[in-house]
């Protein structure tokens, strides 16, 4: 019974905090471009407006893909500990979270390409290549942390940052993780898969009303999973509220960076990720092996 309440709490925080923060980010981007920008609750309106329209569907695989995507991401979110609010105390292994997240990605990809529009296939191919790009440095830096603390459970990783944040202990790993976090979020410099001008918003080209709403929900939950992981691993011990504050800080930092950078070409993304971040990640792993940790 307790787990159900905890899972519900995690999901609701994901929903509300996620959407408000997205509205806040749109406000920040507007302010950077010296205009007013929409109210903070704009994303709520967008989601519910999209859900209320009656759109079109391309057959059962199209619907199944969306459901699998949303279901997968919700399942992943349930395993992510938000500060001290942990839905499944012992079972939140990092590999599970990363690979369960892949269920969501695969479901979305399969559904979108199921619509039959080549724009979505191109978009998905780009998304998967980008994933190949940012996943490797991220996993190395995170496994360096796991190797150092000798545990793969996220909540234990968080609790074992007694003396100082892992970000301070392993700065290189933290930077690499943040850069790949940008890639994961799909923010500006790395939003080649959803490039509106080139491939008509990539995978979402055939998403009409309800499906667009479900996908926006999935996007908010996935943001929550990605940044939640980063905060838990790198930014020290935090109870629920300090977790949310750190979450907002990281989110605003990411929006600031993303609002001023143009978009990468897809080859550049992979080349970028496999040059500097990969090098830094290997360096960090070497340092951990040699035991040079601050």
């Amino acid at each position, binding site marked *: 019974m307790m787990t159900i309440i905890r899972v519900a709490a995690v999901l609701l925080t994901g929903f509300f905090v996620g959407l408000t923060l997205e509205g806040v980010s749109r406000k920040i981007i507007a302010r950077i471009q010296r205009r007013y920008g929409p*109210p903070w609750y*704009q994303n709520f309106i967008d989601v519910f407006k999209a859900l209320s329209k009656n759109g079109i569907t391309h057959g059962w695989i199209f619907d199944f893909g969306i459901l699998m995507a949303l279901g997968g991401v919700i399942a992943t979110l349930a395993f992510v500990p938000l500060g001290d609010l942990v839905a499944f105390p012992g079972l939140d292994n990092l590999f599970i979270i990363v690979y369960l997240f892949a269920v969501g990605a695969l479901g979305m990809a399969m559904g979108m390409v199921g619509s039959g529009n080549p724009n979505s296939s191109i978009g998905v191919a780009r998304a998967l290549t980008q994933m190949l790009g940012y996943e490797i440095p991220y996993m190395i830096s995170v496994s360096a942390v796991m190797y150092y603390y000798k545990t793969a459970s996220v909540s234990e990783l968080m609790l074992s940052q007694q003396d100082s944040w892992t970000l301070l202990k392993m700065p290189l790993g933290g930077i690499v993780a943040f850069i790949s976090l940008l890639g994961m979020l799909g923010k500006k410099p790395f939003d080649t898969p959803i490039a*509106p001008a080139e491939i008509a918003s990539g995978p979402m080209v055939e998403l009409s009303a309800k499906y667009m709403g479900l996908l926006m929900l999935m996007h908010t939950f996935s943001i929550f999973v990605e940044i939640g992981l980063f905060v838990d691993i790198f930014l020290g011990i935090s109870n629920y509220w300090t977790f949310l504050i750190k979450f907002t800080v990281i989110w605003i930092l990411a929006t600031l960076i993303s609002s001023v950078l143009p978009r990468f070409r897809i080859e550049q993304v992979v080349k970028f990720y496999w040059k500097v971040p990969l090098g830094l990640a290997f360096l960090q792993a070497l340092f951990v092996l040699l035991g040079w940790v601050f």
Partner: protein
Amino acid sequence: MANHERNIWEKIADQLRSKSLWMLHYCTGCGAIELPPSMTSRFDMERFGMGPMATPRQADILFITGYLSAKTLRRVIYTYEQMPEPKYVIGFGSCTLNGGIYYDSYATINRLDYYIPVDLYIAGCMPRPEALLEAFNELMKMIRKGEANGWKQYKENYDWYKNNQIRSLGEVLVHDEFHE
């Protein structure tokens, strides 16, 4: 147009729809140049919750910005039908009203709402962004009052619109000779 009876859900939905209108990035005529200034910092369309969307599947509003030749009209109708239900059309400038300066041309249409239902017209041979924002607010009010029912009309007297379209554009078997 009689004001259909709306239940509670539709009223809420109309409130939401008015607050977040997504426009389709599909500009047909010389009026398209008016949209960027209305989006950027001076006039900022986004504060009304309006933003550009790449595909008709996600868009709510379709702007017809300027003169419409027969061939472009055919594409506009095709895109209009691809948009999901509650959809609105705004006609920019006099060319959509009564053919404007091309009233006597053999290729451009003279009256837009003869072919697709138009919720709002903006007069002027390319209205300025202020007029645009005025029109957007006007449209939002209409949506909130439930008067912007162009898409319902299109659905109800669908064959009237279809006959008008056939009358002006005629049936064309799409067969481009260059890519056999």
